[in-house]
């Protein structure tokens, strides 16, 4: 029976795969059906996992089994319920109290972590002595890295007109940005093709069985 259900499952998967691929031809009812099933299942999955993996172990169980130590958790629970009030338009403003905690925490943490990781650590990682190496490629590379980083930042400098030497520096900066966009483009092609490989592996392997396992 298990094997039969497995085969049926594969056929369902194949149907859904082709329903979505049909979008390549044009938008059509099969695609729309598959799309709505996707949205529905996805939402259901999130819903169930949030309850089982977060609300029950982190809120419900601690409060019901050891109330004396965990009664403080009633505050976030209350705020969470305020959050749900957004569903009722007449009192949706109360959700702002909960939102304020979420936004405040995120803003505070983002402030210090971005300053540390994306500004200070990137800065120190660029403080290199390019001439320390004996390898020509590395010397050139590290010089490029230092110049590219500085000119790139100059491009994003908004308080000064891009003209004269400053404009030239910004121009060099944009070239570096373009190279990294090119690299990103190449990598994205790679990523999307990989996903198609995964799909064809399913169709040719799991469904038609013409691939060696």
């Amino acid at each position: 029976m298990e094997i039969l259900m497995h085969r049926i499952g594969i056929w369902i998967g194949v149907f859904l795969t082709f329903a979505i691929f049909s979008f390549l031809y044009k938008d059509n009812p099969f695609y729309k059906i598959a799309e709505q099933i996707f949205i529905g299942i996805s939402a259901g999955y999130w819903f169930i996992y949030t309850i089982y993996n977060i609300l029950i172990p982190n809120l419900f169980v601690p409060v019901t089994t050891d109330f004396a130590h965990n009664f403080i958790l009633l505050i976030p629970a209350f705020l969470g319920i305020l959050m749900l009030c957004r569903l009722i338009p007449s009192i949706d403003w109360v959700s702002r109290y909960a939102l304020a905690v979420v936004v405040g925490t995120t803003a505070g943490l983002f402030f210090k972590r971005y300053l540390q990781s994306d500004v200070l650590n990137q800065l120190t990682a660029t403080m290199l002595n390019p001439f320390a190496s004996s390898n020509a490629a590395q010397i050139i590379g590290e010089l490029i890295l230092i110049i590219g980083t500085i000119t790139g930042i100059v491009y994003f400098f908004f308080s000064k007109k891009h003209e004269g030497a400053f404009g030239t520096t910004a121009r060099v900066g944009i070239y570096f940005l373009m190279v990294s966009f090119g690299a990103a483009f190449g990598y994205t092609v790679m990523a999307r093709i990989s996903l198609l490989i995964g799909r064809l592996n399913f169709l040719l392997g799991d469904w038609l069985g013409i691939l060696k396992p």
Partner: protein
Amino acid sequence: MRVYILLVILIFFSFALCAQDISFTASDNPNDDGGAILLEWNVPPSFPEMIITRSIDKENYIEIARVTPLLKTYIDDENIEDGQEYFYMLSVPKMNGETLQSFSASAIARAQWFNTDKISLLIMTILLGSAILYFILSARRGKRLYIRKISGLDTIEEAVGRATEMGKPLLFVPGISDLDDMQTIAGLNILGHLAEKVAQYDSTIYVPVCRSMVLSTAKEIVKESYLRAGRPDAFNPDSVFYLTDDQFGYVAGVDGIILREKPAANFYLGAFYAESLILAETGFESGAIQIAGTAMPTQIPFFVAACDYTLIGEELFAASAYLSNEPNQLGSLKGQDVGKAIIILTLLVGVVLEMFGIHFLKDFLATH
């Protein structure tokens, strides 16, 4: 007596053997809120597994961990109370695994009032925070802050003019994120400016959106723009409309508009994900002028390759500040520029110092 002499000799020898290699220290774990003691040892890597024991009275030692010489440190945070002295014993078996040799150390856990690892972070926080605040306040007091012209923005007027000449509409796509994303807000600010021009030239604009909150805000903004241009009667509320929340469904809808209406210019300004390339491609094929702007690093390449002008990353926010002339945004941008200038200068100084073999600045800034 003989036993004592033997003992002394034994102790002396074992110390002489190990003194240069083995050390064991305990100290308060630094820069935390208490409740932890840091144990460090230096033992030749050839030694087998060692045992750490702990006591509060120097008598009853309880095993807390088994460690290897390579580990070098262990943080004891099991039921440690601040202010209480804890005694530790590191028991090192000899090479042959027979007798045990023990090293002891003690420490008291405390909470610190200042995390000394974070001085450079604190300095930057203060510098940057006060720069941003200063410029926001001075912008609010009416000081004019200069922002350079963003090149893509000049084409807005040109595009509206061309659309009017050709008798074709314009298309504005504010991305697929909701209002909580700053990119959407920046995009809508630019929409305000664009709609004003559209009203002046008596052209048409389509604004399909994919979030209901964005719909009401965008409608409001376009309406206001028509009012500012003195043409409130010309505002068509149906020109701003909702398609669907779903990513691909939305793209299919926008694609349809591009193919049917053949807009003279397409604007993609906001937060974009994988749909960016589908939009840019369809627009390119239709021959429209395309102006895009997003801070999504993964999507910028598609816009750069297929659009006539692209606002790259922070340029989107700068454009929004430039057009809206809002003091908060302008001041913040100026403050951030001060930060960038500090970074460039520090970087140059740092590189020069590194070349001369002085690592002070780099070590000071590198914290974790």
